[in-house]
């Protein structure tokens, strides 16, 4: 796991030396970093904690909108609003998690997905406009991040890339710590035998809620980062194809095979960019990709790698 992750970040770290002047490729690289973290959070929730949360995109959008609204309406510097957005998303995550995590699997999927679906009318409607979501038009003028007089705007991609990389590495470390720590072991125990694990005093609810909160926080943080990167937001972010892209990352990477999703993010963002000229046929193809991958790629690329190299059984 450490090998794949450190290799990935080293390669990402030297990428701007080659492509620093090509805005198109830098944009793809930044999106890969952002999606890699969001997808990793989802993998920790679904694959490790075993919660069928379908609200990951919703949390991402909540973070983005929270930061945008705070910085546009209240004029707070984006450096602080990003952190505040993370905290807000974390709190909402816990609030959603409180009733949710006591439910059985499919109910959780339903409720979290319903949160996603309700966000669209909420942000477009008068309630959303009252808090400054801009209705169906969205928010168009989000200020860039300004740190000590230096603006990380979308004009200068290389500094923004390194800022994203820095945050990505911190968040990846947090996630890796969760997986490797007592919590990760607790989740494995809960997944293998819930009754036995609870009899040993492992509280499923407590750990699930904590992980839900932390991953929501990180997701919100990166949603906010994205908002200040692109400079405008609309409810299009909640459309099904964004959700599907995130899902393809999971399926390519393998659910619960942690660094796999990072590889999945690289592949998926690239494919998505390559398919962009196809217009409305792109989601059609994405949907077909999901169906085919779920059927034929059981454990994702990590599973494939394990299958063909019996020596490296312990990559995950």
């Amino acid at each position, binding site marked *: 796991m450490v090998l794949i992750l450190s290799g990935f970040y080293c390669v990402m770290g030297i990428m701007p030396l080659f492509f620093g002047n090509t805005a198109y490729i830098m944009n793809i690289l930044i999106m890969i970093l952002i999606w890699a973290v969001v997808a990793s959070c989802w993998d920790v929730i679904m694959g490790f904690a075993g919660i069928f949360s379908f609200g990951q995109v919703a949390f991402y959008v909540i973070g983005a909108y929270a930061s945008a609204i705070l910085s546009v309406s209240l004029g707070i510097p984006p450096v602080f609003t990003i952190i505040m957005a993370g905290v807000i998303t974390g709190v909402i995550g816990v609030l959603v998690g409180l*009733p949710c995590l006591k439910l059985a699997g*499919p109910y959780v999927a339903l*409720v979290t997905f*319903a949160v996603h679906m309700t966000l669209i009318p909420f942000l477009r409607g008068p309630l959303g406009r009252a808090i400054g979501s801009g209705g169906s038009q969205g928010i168009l003028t989000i200020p860039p991040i300004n740190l000590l007089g230096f603006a990380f705007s979308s004009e200068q991609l290389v500094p923004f890339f390194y800022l994203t990389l820095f945050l990505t590495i911190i968040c990846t470390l947090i996630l890796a710590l969760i997986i490797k720590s007592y919590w990760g072991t607790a989740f494995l125990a809960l997944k293998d035998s819930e009754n036995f694990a609870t009899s040993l005093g492992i509280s499923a609810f407590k750990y699930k809620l904590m992980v839900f909160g932390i991953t929501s926080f990180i997701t919100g943080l990166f949603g906010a980062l994205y908002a200040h990167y692109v400079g405008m937001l609309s409810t299009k972010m909640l459309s099904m194809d964004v959700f599907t892209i995130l899902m393809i990352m999971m399926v390519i990477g393998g659910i619960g095979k942690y660094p796999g999703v990072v590889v999945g993010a690289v592949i998926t963002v690239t494919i998505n960019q390559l398919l962009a000229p196809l217009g*409305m046929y792109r*989601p*059609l193809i994405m*949907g077909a990709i*999901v169906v085919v991958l779920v059927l034929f790629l059981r454990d994702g690329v990590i599973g494939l790698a394990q299958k063909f190299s019996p020596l490296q059984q312990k990559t995950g």
Partner: protein
Amino acid sequence: MVFEIIDVIISGLINGSVYALMAVGLTLVYGVTKAFNFAYGSFYNMGGYFAWMLLIPLGMIGGYFSVFFIAIPVFFVVGYLLEKILVSPLRKYDDWEMKVMMLTLGLSLFMDFGYQAVFGPRIKSLPGMIEGTLELGQVVLFRQDIVIFILSVGGMLCFGWLLNNTRTGMAVQAVAQNPAGAKIVGIPKDFIFAATFAISTIMVGFGGILLCQKNFVDPMGSTNIMIKAWVITAFGGMGSISGSLYAAFILGMLEAFVGWHFGMIYVQIATLTLLLVTLTIRPRGLMGRE
């Protein structure tokens, strides 16, 4: 004022009856096969487009009679094949429930954008089954609404009869109650799974044909329908048919009243709030069992 409320109640009843038809299909599939079908809304749209295609470009003789007549076997075959090709290969894995959710979500995206690619992004309107109105004093009823109500309630009764009185229906119940036991007594489990999926496809497709006459066929409207059907199913208790029936009418009414009093934009928020409150108090829904 009073007549307005009566109108709202009637519209709630009609929506509720079609939702009930769809939710019963969904709860049946979940109760029997434990598969969580996210493409349910796209099957609803399939019904709408199927009827549109037969009636408008092909100009089918016999109108809706022939539509229903052709739709039932076609939907059965579509549902059966989808289950056999897509869902049943996943069943042998441990985490198949999650995989089925993901697969059906991908399938729904594929179908929705497929409709858009084939039929174009604009909404289509279906002709009504029957024209004219019926006046009872000051209350004006659309004949079409009455027919929709009768057909969906009739469809449900017919379905209930099939479930309780035919061998296949009883086999479906047996598999739902105890899959292992059903296998021991020689019930072909795989066939029952596929057949249940196919029946639910018929029910939701039927619902699509009925409700699209009132609400148009919208290629992007499927997630809404899917959420509605799922909320009803969860609210009523997954796998409980009577629960879904109550839930469908309660939510149909809620939707009509909230839409009338506060505006359509609050319908989804109200529905979700009701669902969350219900699940907090009763984690298995209204009539759900352990």
